[in-house]
């Protein structure tokens, strides 16, 4: 079962690398923001799978929860900022 979790973690890492392309080459700023949010989504699952691989899930769950909340608040702040300033 650890091999399966390791394979899933590798697939998620490859998806995050694919998402970085949109964060670097996105035409507008708001494309970059949503791709960073998608990378944060994948990072939460990656943290939980790391916890399953290292058998310390009770520690990694708190880190993943904090990461999810910070990702949510950051994206909402960027949306508020662009609502006032306009998309570049």
């Amino acid at each position, binding site marked *: *079962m650890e091999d*399966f979790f390791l394979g*899933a973690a590798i*697939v*998620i890492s490859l*998806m995050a690398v*694919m*998402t970085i*392309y*949109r964060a670097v080459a996105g*035409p*507008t700023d*708001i*494309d970059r*923001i*949503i*791709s960073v*949010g*998608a990378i944060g*989504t*994948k990072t*939460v*699952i990656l943290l*939980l*799978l790391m916890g*399953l691989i290292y058998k310390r*899930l*009770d520690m990694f*769950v*708190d880190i*993943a*929860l904090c990461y*999810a*909340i910070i990702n*949510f608040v950051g*994206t*909402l702040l*960027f*949306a*508020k900022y*662009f*609502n006032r*300033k*306009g*998309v570049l």
Partner: protein
Amino acid sequence: MIEILSATLIVLGLFLLLAGTVGLLRLPDFYCRMHSVGKSDTLGIVLCLSGVALYNLTGGFTLTNILVSLKIMTMAVFWLIANPTTTHALARSAYQSGLKPWTKDGITEIDLDEKRAKEATN
């Protein structure tokens, strides 16, 4: 049995995440990319978290395992509420700051609204 079920949930979630990533890379417009990422990422992460919480219970029904699984399911419910909220906020701010959607002929609803407003004032 529980292991097979949790592995199936994680694989389904990975498929949905992959679909969202391909849509983010391939679609022509910001709104289309938002459409792809906002929905498939939400369901994908909820399925993955459910699979992880289910697998965590195979170590025995102790108090620590049940609490950790409850925390993971809390995170899944949080994502189920938070991800559509961020998608809505970003799409709203993009529309209100005048980012025009992609169309085949180049005429968007924003242009039509401006045209109608100009005709109404005339």
